């Protein structure tokens, strides 16, 4: 019985439910944090320590902080949204379809593990050294492209945040 997995799986699911269900925005952010931490733990369990570290750093550390900043800037606590809901039917359809999606995906991926099989893990699998090796040797182009992407994001963010002259 893999307690590790089950604990953190429940934690992730609970956090997700928390996130999408509260009216106030701050509890939702906390729920999201829970999900992020659970993910990091699961990554550790899956022989991906570097990915786990990155998860905590980037998601829990950067992204979530940005979200909290925005919450702080934009929303007063307990603020109720006043306008009445207009597209109830479409949203209900969306919800129903999501349930359908779960069922379909679940059914579709049933028994996938047996079909795909599994392999033996090598020593030091997922270690930073190995990961860096693969990153720089096989995925060097993707790496460079992502850096350009980040540059674009940087420029865009500066432009958006700039005050109008």
């Amino acid at each position, binding site marked *: 019985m893999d307690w590790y997995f089950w604990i953190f799986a429940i934690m992730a699911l609970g956090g997700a439910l928390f996130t999408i269900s509260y009216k106030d925005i701050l509890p939702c952010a906390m729920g999201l944090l829970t999900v992020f931490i659970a993910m990091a733990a699961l990554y550790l369990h899956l022989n991906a320590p570097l990915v786990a570290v990155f998860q905590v750093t980037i998601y829990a550390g950067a992204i979530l902080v940005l979200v909290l900043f925005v919450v702080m800037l934009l929303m007063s606590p307990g603020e109720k949204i006043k306008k009445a809901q*207009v*597209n109830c039917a*479409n*949203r209900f*359809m*969306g919800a129903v*379809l*999501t349930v*359908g*999606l779960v069922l*379909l*995906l679940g*059914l*579709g991926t049933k028994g996938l593990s047996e079909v795909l099989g599994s392999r033996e893990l090598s020593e030091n699998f997922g270690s930073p050294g190995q990961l860096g090796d693969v990153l720089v040797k096989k995925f060097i182009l993707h790496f460079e492209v992502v850096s350009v992407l980040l540059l674009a994001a940087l420029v865009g963010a500066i432009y958006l945040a700039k005050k109008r002259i």
Partner: protein
Amino acid sequence: MADYLYLIPLFPLIGFLINGLLGKKMGKPMVSMVGCLSVGAAFLVALLSFNELLKLDPEHRQLINTLWTWMAVGAFQVDVSLLLDQLSGVMILVVTGVGFLIHIYSTGYMHEDESYWRYFAYLNMFVFFMCCLVLGANYLVMFVGWEGVGLASYLLIGFWYQGMENAVAGKKAFVVNRIGDFGFALGMFLMFWTFGSLSYFDVFPKALHMFEQGHLMLNAPVMVAICLLLFVGATGKSAQIPLYVWLPDAMAGPTPVSALIHAATMVTAGVYMVARSNVLYTLAPTASLVVALIAAATALFAATIGILQNDIKKVLAYSTVSQLGYMFIGVGVTAYWAGIFHLMTHAFFKACLFLCSGSVIHAMGGDQDMRNMGGLAKKMPITYVTMLLATLAIAGIPPLAGFFSKDEILWRAFTYPYFPVMGKIIWFMGTLGAGITAFYMFRLIFMTFHGEFRGTPEQARHLHESPPSMTVPLIILAVLSVTGGWLGIPHLIGHALNHHAPIPNLLETFLNPVFEHSERIVALKGKIYHYSHWLEWSLMGLSVAVALGGIAMAFHIYIRRYHELPARLARKYAIHYQLVYNKYYVDEIYYYLFVLPIYYFSLFLWKIVDALCIDRVGVNGPAWLVRRISVGTSLIHDGYMQTYGAYMLLGLVAMLAFFLGYR
């Protein structure tokens, strides 16, 4: 010279282009010079070619000039080629010669008109197309000319288009002509289907060959059909019953146009066509009979209308219809050369008559009503003398031209080989018509030139003889009316005049090679009786007597007892008078029978079929429907992102379900 035949149509074409494109900027003298010289040059080339033709052996008198291959589509090949043989030689001389005289006349008549250049351009175009028609070596080139002269006729009838009636008359002429052309086209199709070609050199030998081999019976239905369809075209072009109705209205055009187109040349195109197709008509006696009967009916019918018309040009118009009837009688009773002979003499005297009437109208300041005329003989001597000579010719008084041609036709009708009994009937109708012709023509002379002047005083002051540009052509045509008949003196008279060296029938012997096959077939298949000379002389004398009787009656009514007799007769026979005066109400009958139904039908097609069904339901309807549906459907985009997301998810779920279910 054969290689230069194309110059005959080319000169008028160049004249048309120059006058049409540049005429507005050239002065009137330049325009008249271009116009007249082009036709004059064509006449010169025609004379030279004719001369060349005469040098050839009588059996092989043909000059052929093939210009280029017009179309070669599968089994169908047509060349643009011109043929000058005896028949087209006579025709082309008449067309270009009389045309040239009328061009000269027009320089005087149309002198004050501002669209002078347009007139000469159209007139040259007409001569060009007429030359195409006459010189064509196959039916298609003839048809080009056929249609082209119809177009020129429309343009020239409606020349003063600012007046509504003129435009309407032009339109009527064109539409009625087109009905005939439709028949002609069907005849051509049938001819191609039967003989595989439209060239004279293919169709006629093939027809003869098929007849001699026994493949083609006399009176075969397909031959009768071809001949009748071609004749439908001829009724349209040459104003026979039932398509003659455009010719009286065509008098709305300038008088020289009436002279050239509607007397001398265009309306004779039908006669030329039948004469050219003589082999086909001889092989289909039923068709020939139909032609002759319709022609006889037309001759008589039109003559009766002519006796009561008051417009000088209308009288001449109905006279033309009537005389065309005589020509068709000639070619209908297989006396082809006689029909062509009458065509030639008619061109001379009818053109002279029209030009003289133009002179009179000119002097009367545009008034055409004979009731306002009278006593013009003293004021316009040249016009009077020439018109009198032409009228004597048309009445059939020997030794002027009309006597010989008309008499030949009537004699040949009397001795019609295929249907002797019908021939006698046709002769009777023709003779009666000849008497009526003499009557109404002299009525015209007496009302116009004799008696007291009945017009207004300003008109009386204005009366004058026409300038030389107008009177010289009149004199030339009058001389031709007198002497033209001497080309076709019948054997009887030729023998009688000189026993030892009989005067030959020049025209008949000249044209004989063109018609010899027909003569042979008629001799083979017709019932040839031998008629005595005494009968021929007495018939000849009878027709002269009838003509003199007509003149005498006209003299009696319109000179001696003019003041009360015509009016009294009109009152006494009021119903007949109204009927004949209103042209037997034929125009009205056509209007209610054909024009109005077609008008309402086209109104229906326009308003209901086109505007409603096709436009509203067919074209705009689906567009409106699509618009409505799309506007409705686009409301699915309500602007909310979650709706869009929901629909995207819908698509995704559907696809997943499909693929998972499929597996």
